[in-house]
């Protein structure tokens, strides 16, 4: 693989939490490269460090040690505001608990990231509608999150993550709060979008059955990648 195809480059990432003055190592030196436009799956048991690693890749947490480069940018060197802007432009999130803004309707939730990137109003509408169409929720665009089912909410969240065409979409166990069938649909949806689009997906799960056909599997165990 050529250098230019690398989107995330992790070098000796350590993360240690302090719990009542006891050090809890969550990540123990992770070094790996993640390639563009793939559907990357991090799989590991509960407590293995998936969330911790995805948070660090998503620039919402910092490693205790090691360096991380995203799109060629050493993000450990960025200030808090610069990191905010970096996330706003390059990273989309899909959360386990959907995390839609409860006071905004589906349409507004999807529009939200575009406001952060100061996308002109003229382009916003088309982009939002396109994103909602991709996840099949055009008919529900005016509903508030609490008027949608879990699967529908997660679809809105996927539309929200994709609408700004980020380089990277991070989905930390996005199916954990869904029943198996809906979870499968969500993964198929994401894989379909990934296959047709420009975006790199990083997806984590502890459920082996969900991801039998993934091309890029990372096994995480006890804070290390096998």
């Amino acid at each position: 693989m050529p250098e230019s195809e690398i989107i995330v480059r992790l070098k000796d990432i350590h993360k240690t939490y302090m719990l009542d003055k006891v050090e809890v190592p969550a990540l123990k030196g992770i070094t790996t490269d993640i390639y563009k436009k793939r559907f990357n799956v991090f799989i590991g048991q509960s407590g293995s460090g998936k969330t911790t690693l995805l948070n660090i890749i998503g620039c919402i947490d910092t490693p205790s040690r090691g360096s991380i480069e995203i799109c060629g940018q050493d993000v450990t060197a960025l200030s808090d505001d610069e990191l905010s802007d970096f996330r706003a432009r390059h990273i989309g999130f899909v959360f386990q608990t959907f995390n839609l803004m409860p006071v905004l309707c589906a349409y507004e939730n999807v529009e939200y990231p575009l406001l952060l990137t100061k996308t002109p109003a003229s382009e916003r509408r088309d982009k939002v509608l396109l994103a909602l169409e991709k996840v099949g929720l055009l008919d529900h665009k005016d509903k508030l999150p609490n008027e949608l089912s879990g699967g529908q909410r997660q679809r809105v969240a996927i539309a929200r993550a994709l609408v700004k065409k980020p380089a990277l979409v991070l989905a930390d166990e996005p199916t954990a709060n869904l029943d198996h069938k809906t979870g499968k649909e969500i993964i198929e949806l994401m894989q379909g979008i990934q296959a047709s689009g420009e975006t790199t997906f990083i997806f984590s799960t502890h459920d082996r059955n969900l991801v039998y056909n993934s091309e890029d599997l990372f096994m995480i165990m006890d804070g290390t990648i096998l």
Partner: protein
Amino acid sequence: MRTFTIAYRNIYRNTRRSLMTVLAIAVSSVSVLLFGGNILSIIYTLQTGYVRTSGHIHIYKSGYSRYGATNPAAYSLGDYEQVLRTITADPQLQSSVRAVMPFLYFQGIAGNFAADTSQAFSGIGILPSIFDRFAGWDDYHLKVTKTDISTGLKDADATGGVVGYGMADRLDLCGPLRLDDCPPRPEPKKKPGKNVPAMDFSALTESDFPAGTSAQDAGSARLDLLAATSGGAPNVVTLNVRKAMRMGSKAFNDGLIIMNLKLAQQLVCGRAEKKVTGLMLQLDHTKDIPQTLGRLRAILPGDDLEIKSFQEVRPMYGQTISMFATIFGFVAFIMGVIVLFTTVNTMSMSVMERINEIGTARALGLRRSDIMRQFVAEGFLLGVIGTTLGAVAALAISGAINWAEVTWTPPDYATPVFLSVHLFLQPLFLPACWLGLVAVATLSSLIPARNAARMMIVDALRHN
């Protein structure tokens, strides 16, 4: 950003709590506005009273304020006609001065010998037509009392005057003046065998009109006024009391006689040069005082004259304002504290409930400052809604109070005055209170907003 849309919807989200907060802010704002509006009414009523009875600016002979009381003859104004002419001829003063009037202030004893009563009084000689013009000053459109404060005296009526209601009662003038609401008087016990009429000191008169020439008119009463002339000799004139007036302050009501300047001068100056205590100027607007003072000092011989604003002549006015300002400041402070605690409490609860949302928003790319702005906007909106509601309520309540024409009698007053609340006497009062409370609400939300902005994203996201 959609900061205000989101803020507004979040306020709606917890309707009950927001309503309580908005109500607390509204009640604080109503209290501040009504209380302040009432104080403004009192202060401006006081000012209107001063201005109506004694104008905005007084001109005395130099030294009067220190020595005038003990040596009125030496510190009264002899060439007042000249000063008067200078003032009325000045084009610059014409634009601000509404009326000018010489006045003569003195002390004496008034006797109603028909009823065997007498008392010490304060007398003021005035030009009736100008005095009544003074009484018509109403720059603030205030309803002060139900009673008319003009004397109704005629300039040509050289021996006419009015007394306070209390004085009329004390001197037993209720009958002659046909006052129907005097309390009944016990019959004086005549001392047996000694039916000598009380000493009539009208023999002392040094008058141009010989004593007794002005016959007593029907519906009026006669008082003999005794005072010392500037030369030090006792002098007596006869006053025809045309009516008894309800005067605001109890001291005036019980002991003031307002009379034609000619009569006062006849009593105090005798056959000597006719002098006055000073001149009163009434301006169209109180705010023109400094400018008018400046002009007067420029065109009048400043060394010979004392030119003073009514605030200087009556320090109680300024003292009253500072007293009320202090009380108002205290009340406003307490209300501000209530708004502060209410807003801090509400916003803190709001932040606690939305930790997960804060984490999500930060992950999506909001900066700390954006989070801060979001919550401050909510505090600001709560403040705006609350204070606006309060202002509207205060307007309605003040309108109702003024409409109801409730009266009260201020301390040391003889007549009741209207209890009123005026929110627009000081144009900046309402906007300043509104802004002040909105600012408190906004600033109060800074603390919870800062806590929200400082959260670690991963911790906030893990929170459910």
